């Protein structure tokens, strides 16, 4: 059952990223890179700046300092719409689904960028637009099958329990066929069984769909099992970076986690 997927070159790297809100420094001189097809985790205690980092990656926040290299392109910051267009999809810590819509419709919206038919044809729901709709529906069904959520296909998302909503959100992100998938605490608030399911899905996404995954987690345990490399943040600074084993034995990390022990 060895993994045969190949970890490739660096697709995304950050050089000395700094971000502050007013006087509060959220990120200070953060540098790390993400390689193609790897599972890259960003961990750290609460308030370490993990979510800020993720928001920098998909352009919700714009860092004051530093440089981002994305597929060989040097840039100061990212832009939400553009990053979605260039194959970065994400989920949110506090689930940002379209609550009034069904699971299927949520996943279909995820295919928005893949839809090509023009406005007028679409308005008439005619010819190519209709064929396209069927094509996308098929893709959406494959994702539903993949995530094993057939039974809630037509259920409005707002009625689902938390764990399933997280899964649907992953489905919506997958619908865009992303090359890079950002997951913001995908396992927060889940019970053991749901966590295991989620881990399995993340590994499958990485393995079968070949997506590069950047994920944030508060809880070290699960992440260490599935990540290839881990960055550890604490108070907006990088304190460690390496394989799970290296990070686990790093004194700074041990201190940081013990320091915030409950």
């Amino acid at each position, binding site marked *: *059952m*060895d*993994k*045969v997927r190949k970890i490739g070159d660096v697709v995304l790297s950050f050089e000395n990223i700094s971000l502050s809100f007013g006087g509060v420094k959220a990120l200070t001189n953060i540098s790390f890179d993400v390689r193609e097809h790897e599972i890259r985790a960003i961990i750290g205690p609460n308030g370490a700046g993990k979510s800020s980092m993720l928001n920098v990656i998909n352009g919700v926040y714009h860092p004051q300092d530093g440089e981002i290299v994305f597929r060989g392109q040097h840039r100061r910051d990212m832009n939400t719409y553009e990053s979605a267009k260039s194959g970065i999809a994400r989920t949110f810590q506090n689930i940002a689904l379209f609550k009034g819509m069904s699971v299927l419709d949520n996943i279909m919206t995820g295919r928005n960028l893949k839809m090509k038919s023009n406005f007028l044809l679409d308005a008439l729901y005619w010819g190519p637009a209709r064929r396209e709709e069927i094509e996308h*529906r*098929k893709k959406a*069904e*494959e994702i*539903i*099958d*993949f995530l*094993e959520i*057939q*039974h*809630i*296909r*037509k259920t409005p998302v707002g009625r689902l329990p938390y764990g399933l909503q997280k899964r649907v959100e992953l489905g919506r992100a997958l619908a865009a066929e992303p090359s890079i998938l950002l997951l913001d605490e995908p396992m927060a608030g889940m019970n*053991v*069984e749901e966590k*295991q399911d989620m881990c399995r899905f993340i590994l*499958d996404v990485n*393995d*079968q769909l070949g997506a590069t995954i950047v994920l944030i987690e508060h809880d070290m345990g699960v992440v260490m099992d599935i990540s290839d490399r881990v960055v550890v943040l604490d108070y907006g600074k990088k304190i460690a970076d390496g394989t799970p084993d290296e990070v686990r034995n790093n004194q700074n990390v041990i201190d940081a986690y013990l320091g915030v022990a409950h």
Partner: protein
Amino acid sequence: MAASSPDKVVGTLDTFPHLLLNHARVRGDRPATREKDLGIWQTWSWRQVAEETRAMACGLSALGFKRGDNLAIVGDNRPRLYWAMCAAQMLGGVPVPLYQDAVAQEMAYVLENAGIKFAIVEDQEQVDKLLEIMGNGPALNHILYDDPRGMRHYTQPYIQSLDEVIEMGRIHDRTQPDFLDGEIALGRPGDVAVMLYTSGTTGKPKGVCQTHASFITAAQSGVEFDHLGPQDDILSYLPMAWVGDHLFSYAQAMVAGFTINCPESGDTVLTDLREIGPTYYFAPPRVFENLLTTVMIRMEDASAIKRRMFHAFMAVARRCGAEILDGKPGVSAADRLLYALGNLCVYGPLRNVLGMSRIRVAYTAGAAIGPDLFRFYRSIGVNLKQLYGSTETCAAVCLQPDGEIKFDSVGKPAPGVEVRIADNGEVLVRGKMLLKEYYRRPEDTAEAIDHEGFFHTGDAGFFDEDGHLKIIDRAKDVGKLASGDLFAPNYIENKLKFVSYIKEAVAFGQGLDKVCAFINIDLGAVGNWAERRNIAYSGYTDLAQKAEVYELIRQCVEDANADLAHDPMLCASQVQRFLILHKELDPDDDELTRTRKVRRGFIGEKYRVLIDALYSEKRSQFIETQVRFEDGRSGMISADLRIMEARTTPSQAVKKAA
């Protein structure tokens, strides 16, 4: 029947492979199997099914599967798993379907016992389970999987995809087409067709060997009894290892040539049911109960007008619905009119929601069904009937004929079946549908089938004045209270379980001075009840110990007591003290069998302290229990359980002036 016919074509329809090939010939383009995949119903015609099955058989043969071998089949109801049964039979092998949710050690026993070398499984989950078993037990030579998802990195040479094997078989069948036909021709009706393991309320599971002849006879009698034909549709969603599913989804489908429909997943059954609208339906009482509970919960949330209309028309249906369905006289014209109106406004839509709009015949078996539940379905126009049988009898001993429906009987003996009641009340059965033997257990076989050829069912029952069989309990469970009164625990438990708030009950009393019971509440129904009363709770354990819930359950128990008081034989069996368990009884904890029957002995040992407390004066008892989660880990649950008294009703017949 087929064997006695001189007609040559009919004469050869005595094994399942012959039946399949015949359907491919006479109704090749009609749908044989459907499955919902990626949101769409896929259909295979009889011809396609025959081709796929042939290819699978040839592929299996190329891998070395041969006459007399046993083939394990593990998974949810998937078309190719059904076809695999016939593929094995074509080669003279024996399919052995296993319960897909069985834990590894249970599965290990069966694999070992049946000497399995070949397994066809649904997906990665089952492959992993088999690999775990193989680590320290029986060695399989081949594991074939249906769903390739997640299987890319399994490098073991003995793990192969079913696709590959079928492809291989296709070539094989093309190059030497006579081979398979020759193998099929070698099949005899007296050969073992399938081996079904009984879940066994005690001891290790036993492999029940059924021949082609016995299952075809059993299927034929059912098909003729209810006039089933190729136009019928059935939803196949019950475990393939259960005799009920094998009879309905395999044997009867093969005999009558109707279409089986496989749901998308276990969780989508309700939706799939609605989409397919089967004409023929089979489910254990629990499924009917769950369906009804879902409807009732939804009704509680509906608007006041809808709710009122529902209840008004349900009252009409209760009054005359079942009678109208049976075509009985004596229903007033006004009631008929009201019922017709209700059919338009309530029953019709309701049947539609339940996926029962097209049902001609529905059966339930496997456990006793509550009279209210049974009446409910019949009153809204669903022709629900009961049948009686077991794995050893191909689930075909007694059936309720149309128009002769009784709520508390299981009907009359099926054509060609002899039923006799032994002196101790045990039901004895003889007929062509009896098992050939228990696999490699001659002494068990000898014990179960007596010298006259009667099979001892282990159930206690009697015939009523109309010749209908009435089952009260397992023969060995029927005992006596200290007072000498009859004690039939299952009967009491069923009375309790017929209440929608109670999911499971275990009654004690054998050799004791009174009857006491453990109760499991139904989390869905009681949870909904609690929410409507603004009672906050955090989970099963918390809800179960609420004073309000105890009060609710006490009411239910007292109602059941009043019911028991009607029958002079059982009046002494009224439940005097009860408690609500802190956890749900679970097959994973060995408290229930896979078919969800209570393992009374095991529970008695495990919860000894609770039983002692019930028979003392205590008002509460502390308990700590180990539970096993679905992922295989275990944990502890502890709670302080209340114990409550329930009022009993004095006997109607012998009213004692206290």
